[in-house]
């Protein structure tokens, strides 16, 4: 479905298959929707003719002569189909979202029109939906020691924007750590992950630029792209032929009316798409970007910390260098158990964003306790906190050369001690009794 991929660009085989549902599943789904629609029409008829009480928004009598407000399909669907099953979603929880959590009990007396809380909690519900990928969102006191210390030192409120008085030493420390973690020159952190996308894309592109965005991009990317005022073109999800066609057309035909060259062409993709679960075809996109001189904006919200041998994201998963991607963006909400987002890349880019990002000028900066939580999570992943919980075991190759040299030196010392006891008769022929001196000199050189 996504076109043939260029297998020579990948370092290891990249197979993605999404199985198609069997035919009877599709037929039964339509049967269910048909029955639901028929009953929806029946209920609407009963509501319109007064046989049933109306619980939803309707127009007043004076508004009946105007354009109808609630007759479109979306309202019909919400009123008749979504309402029947909406007790499955949006339930408040009352504990940390670990592997199990506590749920507030909620009942409905009138078939999902209204809900009320009984006041009891359902304990130990299995968690299948949180973003707590690595388990850093925890309440263990030993794990949160540094976070508690920073909370007592700084409090919770920063009460200012980054450019005014909101840049703390914690933010500087965190930004250096993020840059080191990703292997780039510099990084900047923001208080909210959604706002990182929607406030920084307008700072990077404007009118006269072209945005090529994937079909299934997140709302934050779409909002940022629309806010920027640039022209947006959509390519089919993970389909490199579609992207290449768009790039070629953009370069050949230029801007719509004037046919001038585009000021900037930027490709917006995500590392892992949250709804589909598909991983971006990064090597192909980078080769396309290099060929057609476009920029790449990679949103690693779900893949940072979770994908790759040491958790560095899709860039490491495909064995590529972070210099291939122009703008590396990610969030701390998912794998790090905190809140906020970052943008990382070359120092020039990050300096520009420090001055021109809307979030830096107007939005409050990250809370220092949250920054400390990210620091502790990142240090655990990099192995800097002294434990090997986060880092995979790779100690052997690093001290092997020193091990070899130490072993050599030890064996030579043993030989020297033995030689001092009785000088070798064969060596006497070549040098008169100076074997010991030569050995000592050799050992000293080593």
């Amino acid at each position, binding site marked *: 479905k996504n076109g043939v991929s260029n297998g020579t660009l990948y370092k290891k085989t990249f197979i993605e298959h999404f199985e198609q549902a069997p035919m009877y599943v599709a037929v039964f789904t339509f*049967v*269910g*929707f048909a*029955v*639901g629609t028929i*009953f929806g029409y029946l209920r609407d008829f009963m509501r319109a003719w007064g046989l049933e009480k109306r619980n939803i928004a309707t127009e007043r009598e004076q508004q009946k002569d105007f354009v109808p407000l609630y007759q479109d399909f979306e309202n019909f669907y919400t009123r008749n189909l979504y309402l*029947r*099953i909406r007790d499955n979603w949006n339930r408040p929880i009352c504990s940390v979202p670990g592997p199990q959590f506590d749920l507030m009990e909620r009942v409905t007396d009138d*078939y999902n029109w209204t809900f009320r809380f009984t006041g009891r909690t359902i304990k130990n519900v299995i968690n299948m939906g949180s973003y707590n990928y690595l388990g850093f969102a925890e309440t263990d006191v030993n794990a949160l020691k540094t976070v508690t210390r920073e909370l007592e030192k700084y409090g919770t409120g920063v009460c200012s924007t980054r450019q005014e008085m909101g840049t703390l030493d914690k933010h500087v420390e965190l930004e250096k750590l993020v840059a080191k973690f990703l292997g780039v020159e510099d990084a900047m952190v923001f208080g909210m992950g959604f706002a990182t996308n929607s406030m920084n894309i307008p700072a990077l592109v404007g009118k006269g630029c072209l945005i090529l965005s994937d079909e299934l991009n997140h709302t934050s990317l779409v909002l940022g792209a629309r806010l920027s005022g640039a022209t947006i073109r959509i390519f089919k999800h993970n389909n490199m032929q579609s992207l290449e066609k768009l790039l070629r057309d953009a370069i050949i035909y230029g801007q719509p009316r004037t046919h001038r060259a585009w000021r900037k062409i930027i490709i917006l993709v995500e590392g892992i798409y949250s709804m589909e679960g598909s991983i971006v075809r990064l090597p192909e996109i980078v080769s396309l970007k290099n060929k057609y001189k476009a920029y790449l904006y990679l949103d690693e919200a779900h893949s940072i910390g979770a994908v790759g041998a040491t958790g560095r994201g899709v860039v490491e998963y495909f064995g590529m260098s972070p210099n291939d991607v122009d703008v590396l963006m990610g969030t701390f909400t998912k794998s790090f158990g905190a809140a906020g987002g970052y943008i990382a890349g070359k120092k020039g880019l990050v300096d520009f964003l420090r001055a021109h990002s809307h979030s830096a000028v107007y939005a409050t900066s990250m809370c220092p306790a949250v920054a400390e939580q990210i620091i502790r999570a990142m240090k655990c992943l990099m192995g800097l906190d002294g434990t090997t919980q986060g880092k995979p075991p790779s100690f052997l190759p690093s001290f092997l050369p020193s091990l070899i040299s130490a072993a050599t030196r030890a064996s030579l010392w043993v030989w020297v001690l033995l030689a001092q006891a009785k000088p070798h008769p064969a060596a006497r022929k070549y040098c008169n009794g100076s074997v010991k001196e030569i050995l000592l000199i050799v050992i000293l050189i080593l």
Partner: protein
Amino acid sequence: MDVRSTLSYLYWLFCQFELITCSYLMEPWEKVLFYSFNLAMLGLLLYTTYVCVAFQASSAFQLLCSFLGTPRENALAVVK
């Protein structure tokens, strides 16, 4: 107990039917309406089957019996 597993399997089938036709989500009076409509349709189908197909089946059976018994001038003549 074989009966219990059979009953639970039948209950599971009934739950699948309820989910597919969205009758799991309906209010009780809607369920009554839907099931009565379905049962009425099913009854009508069975009655039509009985009336139409029975005649065809009986005439075909008589034809078969005539082959075993006396030979006839033409195969289409049905014994009254």
